């Protein structure tokens, strides 16, 4: 059901990634990321999908000895975010991330969301108030927290904490948002809320999501990529992947006959 024209937001070109010690976790992956679309990465545990996702905000830089090869190019400015000299902090402002387990900071709800803005040097109280409200609204949690912004974030439920983390990621107005198993710690209703939120967020930004849950990929994504042993086995629009995949490996995985 994708009929509108697509423009590229980012793409990987022959991306390889080696962990310290030589494990070749991502093998020569070239994949487009279309603007205002949700792309899902599926595949069995250890297939490299989370590793691939983390390349997008240079998470692997935090550990010495890891090595990237190839490019991740952002459009329209054509910046290769893996290039030496490109500041990882700047990359993370443009490409934010939401993790598997909600991980709010041990601060108030307000300060969690304001954090990224403060790092950026924003100290104007009124500006911060506005941005925090906007981000919380964008993450569909404003109505639940507006009367207790100074409460500790840990007092929220799991689903609320995850939406707070999304608000925190939204506050710096990223262009791409990465979700690493965003609902695997949540119950079905909280999951549905997050997924619905993702569908709304894609009007504003571009999303790349890693999920173990194939049904989640089927429900939320516009494009799906199947990864296995570090390789991109198949990439296509989600309707096609889930109704008539071209590769037998993909079919076996999505129909539960793998192995």
């Amino acid at each position: 059901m994708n009929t509108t024209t697509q423009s590229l937001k980012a793409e990987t070109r022959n991306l390889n990634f080696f962990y310290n010690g030589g494990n070749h976790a991502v093998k020569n992956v070239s994949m487009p990321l279309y603007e205002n679309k949700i792309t899902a990465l599926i595949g069995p545990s250890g297939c490299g999908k989370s590793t691939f996702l983390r390349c997008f905000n240079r998470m692997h830089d935090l550990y010495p000895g890891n090595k990237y090869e190839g490019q991740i190019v952002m459009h329209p400015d054509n910046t290769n975010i893996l290039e030496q000299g490109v500041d990882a902090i700047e990359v993370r402002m443009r490409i934010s991330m939401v993790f598997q387990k909600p991980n709010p900071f041990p601060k108030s709800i307000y300060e969690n969301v304001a954090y990224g803005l403060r790092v950026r040097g924003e100290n104007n109280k009124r500006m911060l108030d506005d941005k925090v409200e906007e981000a919380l609204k964008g993450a569909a949690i404003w109505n639940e927290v507006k009367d207790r912004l100074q409460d500790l974030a840990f007092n929220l439920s799991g689903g609320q904490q995850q939406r707070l983390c999304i608000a925190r990621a939204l506050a710096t107005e990223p262009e791409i948002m990465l979700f690493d198993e965003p609902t695997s710690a949540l119950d079905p209703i909280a999951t549905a809320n997050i997924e619905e939120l993702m569908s709304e967020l894609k009007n504003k930004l571009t999303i790349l999501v890693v999920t173990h849950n194939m049904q989640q990929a089927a429900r939320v994504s516009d494009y799906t990529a199947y990864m296995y042993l570090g390789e991109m086995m198949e990439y296509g629009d989600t309707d096609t992947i889930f109704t008539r995949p071209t590769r037998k490996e993909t079919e076996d995985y999505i129909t539960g006959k793998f192995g």
Partner: protein
Amino acid sequence: MSSEHIYKQYDNELEAVRAKVLEMGSLVEQQIVDALESLVSHDTKLAETVIKRDHMVNALEVQIDEDCSYIIARRQPAAGDLRIILMMIKTITDLERIGDEAAKIARFSQKTIETDRMWKPRFAEIKLMATLAREMLHMSLDAFARSDATKVLPIAQMDEQVDEQYQTTIRQLITFMLEDPRTISMSLEVLFVSKAIERIGDHAKNISEYVVYMVKGKDVRHISMEEMEEVAKQP
């Protein structure tokens, strides 16, 4: 659909397919009306239009099937959602066949006009049957649009009336053919048209049964009228 899903997109997808099924339904209704009109008023142009338009009915069937397969693959519909999807997939098969019957009538109409063989006296009965069959289809689609199982109750009875009239027509045609063998080819044409109308009634009745399944979750095919009434009236 009484309440909304958390996934608004899911609601939109279901609603879009539902709308397409209704669109296909009204197109097919129009096909029946025009096919019969071409027969009654000796309008070859109208018959031609009906025949040409049949591909639109077919295209909608293909589209709706595809949309449903995407929804199944992406949403794993359950309960009421599953029933509406199954119902729509089955309904469009019947609608497509009704479309074929209408095109068939239009082709007969063309042929009889060209050879100037249509037999006026038989029109009245055909028209009555056709009106009933069309009304059955209309009621089934209306019940589908409103998700109201009670609306389909008269349809089974109407189907019996159509069948009775079909039998009556056959008996009369046989009499004519026995009396005068020159009427055989004309009689056969009338018979084919009647048969097409009778089939339209059967398809409309099928659709009405799918509506009951969709709304009540009970399969009412191949059961008595009384049982069906009971199911449809359950709260």
